[in-house]
């Protein structure tokens, strides 16, 4: 049983505009846990900080503050420690056209991690490893695919290679950052089903970063919704999608294309649209300029309030102390 614990993780970027300096809080005090055999979805719009979180977990970006613990042990710095960590935590990127080197064969892409992580002693075991990886992601015949170059493969096949490469060091945690958004619709579910199958077979902990609520609900057991660097709602997938508690989640869910829901039920969306403006001050609820329910307490710092067991929202409407209850 593996757990990756994220405690109060933040990442700030300084933006220089002439002599002006502003601090962008891409990720602001985020805590959660990834556990073996579970998929957690991180959803939000572009710029909400979801990819920055994935990159920090992959140790591609350094957090400004906060800490991460693998099986309860805080992460160490240094080349060897990071390499050992990367053996445990692997990432699949969004763009299968950019994440593979066009000058190298599929076999090369898979041999390298096997060699770097000391999993193959000689070229025979290396080849066995490559073929085994290709077999696990259903790229057959394995001997033929191993000799192919990225440009000879379709988008879906390339993403399978990227997944095989991520599996090579036998990771326990897989970070999937929008793994299907560049692929054709008919291919997407194949790739997501593959990740889901591998999760079960290898008992992986999966972080699924996406903007697509429907697949998040479908593949993840729990969902975290991000808005401007903060997690504003978290809970079991069905609870979050079918009974959104934060007004922002509600907005996202009602904006998503859904031919099964008749249009009149979306009427309340117009009210939610409000202003697109964002405020520069980060005190209180960040969603309040757009929120139809905003009231006098919203400029105060908002903690997460439990709505139901395991389901929480960063919204004062769910504060048990608000006498009227949720409005």
């Amino acid at each position, binding site marked *: 049983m593996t757990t990756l614990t994220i405690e109060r993780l933040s990442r700030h970027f300084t933006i220089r505009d002439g002599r002006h300096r502003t601090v962008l809080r891409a990720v602001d005090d985020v805590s959660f846990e990834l556990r073996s055999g579970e998929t957690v979805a991180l959803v939000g719009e572009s710029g909400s900080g979801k990819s920055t979180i994935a990159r920090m977990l992959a140790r591609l970006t350094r957090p400004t503050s906060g800490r991460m613990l693998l099986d309860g042990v805080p992460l160490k710095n240094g080349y060897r420690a990071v390499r050992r960590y990367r053996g445990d935590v692997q990432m699949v990127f969004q763009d299968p056209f950019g994440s593979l080197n066009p000058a190298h064969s599929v076999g090369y892409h898979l041999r390298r991690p096997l060699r770097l992580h000391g999993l193959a002693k000689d070229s025979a075991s290396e080849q066995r490893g490559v073929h085994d990886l290709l077999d696990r992601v259903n790229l057959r015949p394995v001997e033929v695919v191993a000799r192919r170059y990225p440009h000879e493969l379709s988008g879906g096949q390339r993403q399978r290679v990227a997944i095989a490469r991520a599996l090579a060091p036998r990771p326990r945690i897989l970070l999937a950052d929008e793994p299907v958004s560049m692929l054709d619709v008919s291919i997407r579910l194949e*790739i997501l*089903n593959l990740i889901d199958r591998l999760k079960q077979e290898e008992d992986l902990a999966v972080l699924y970063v996406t903007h697509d609520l429907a697949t998040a609900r479908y593949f993840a057991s729990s969902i975290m919704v991000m808005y401007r660097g903060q997690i504003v709602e978290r809970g079991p997938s069905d609870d979050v999608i079918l009974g959104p508690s934060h007004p922002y989640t509600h907005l996202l869910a009602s904006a998503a294309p859904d031919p099964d829901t008749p249009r009149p039920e979306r009427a309340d969306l117009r009210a939610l649209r409000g202003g697109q403006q964002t405020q520069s001050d980060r005190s209180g609820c960040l969603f309040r300029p757009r929120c139809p329910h905003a009231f006098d307490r919203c400029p105060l710092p908002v903690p997460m309030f439990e709505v139901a067991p395991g389901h929480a929202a960063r919204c004062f409407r769910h504060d048990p102390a608000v006498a009227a209850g949720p409005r």
Partner: protein
Amino acid sequence: MTNPSDVVLSVRDVTVEYAGTPPVRAVRGVSFDLARGEVLGIAGESGCGKSTLAYAVTRLLRPPGRLVGGSVTFTPPDGGDPIDVNALAGEELRLFRWHRIAMVFQGAMNALNPVLSVRRQLSDVFTAHEPGMGRRQREERCRQLLDLVGIAPNRLSSYPHELSGGMRQRVMIAMAMALRPDVVVMDEPTTALDVVVQRDILEEIDRLREMFGFAVVFITHDLSLLLEISDQLAIMYGGRIVETGRARDIHAAPHHPYTVGLLNSFPSLRGERQRLHGIPGNPPDLAHPPAHCAFTARCPYAFAQCHEIDPPLAPVRSGDGPGTLTACLQYDRTLRPAGPDEALVQGRFDLDRLGTSA
């Protein structure tokens, strides 16, 4: 079918080829009718020919792309003689575009000129198409246009990079509205946008359509979006339309195995969870299109004749209403007297028959 007198755009057997060795037939014998004020959704995956079709209809094809057959006829809804779009040239073509058919392209970032202000780009439309208009009047019209799509008129002086993705797309739509066209062709207008912004844009398009009554050809790969917004739907695969009909009929009862597979590729946001999967395999290589149905290789319901015949669109009898057309031999009663496969009728994409697994 739609009332013939209402048809504004009639496309017949359009075939487009990209020169090369061998040439690639991106669109193969596509026909459709677009009625006044209607939304026709064209769905398909990348490489199915949907964007090429849009370019062909608006006469925007550039070499090596070439229209090798078929006709596009525009009938002005305000009366007047039908216009053979393919025969237009020079000044006539220039007048036709933007006045009659406007286009909103995919990726507003690339479609707007980054070094010209919004004002310059909007007023260009008027300078080019209504040369008699004075400077002050142009400015006034530009302000109205921005206001129309919900952007503050003081944004006229902005440059594209100063606008958000959603605003840029709104500017594109404003530009398309400039001369009150009868038909607007939209090629993936919301693909790069976040869901909330996408929803705003869709509502904007809806509102403008109510105001001006133009017809829309809406092209996207997002079938769930199309089902929601379209009146008519055409599903493209391998350069052909494989199924077409009213959107709600196709949603309720898809016929072509590809449509069924595509519908099974989208998990429902709120519906019950069921085991879903995409469509295994890859789209056909249109440089070497098969002589038979292009979907056969990925189709769980293919039988012997599917490897020989490329079926044309034919009506399928089901329930009342105008009915759906589909190009599938499963519905050919001479080949299958007993009717189509039971699982296909139930809208299941039966993977087991393909003998593959995820």
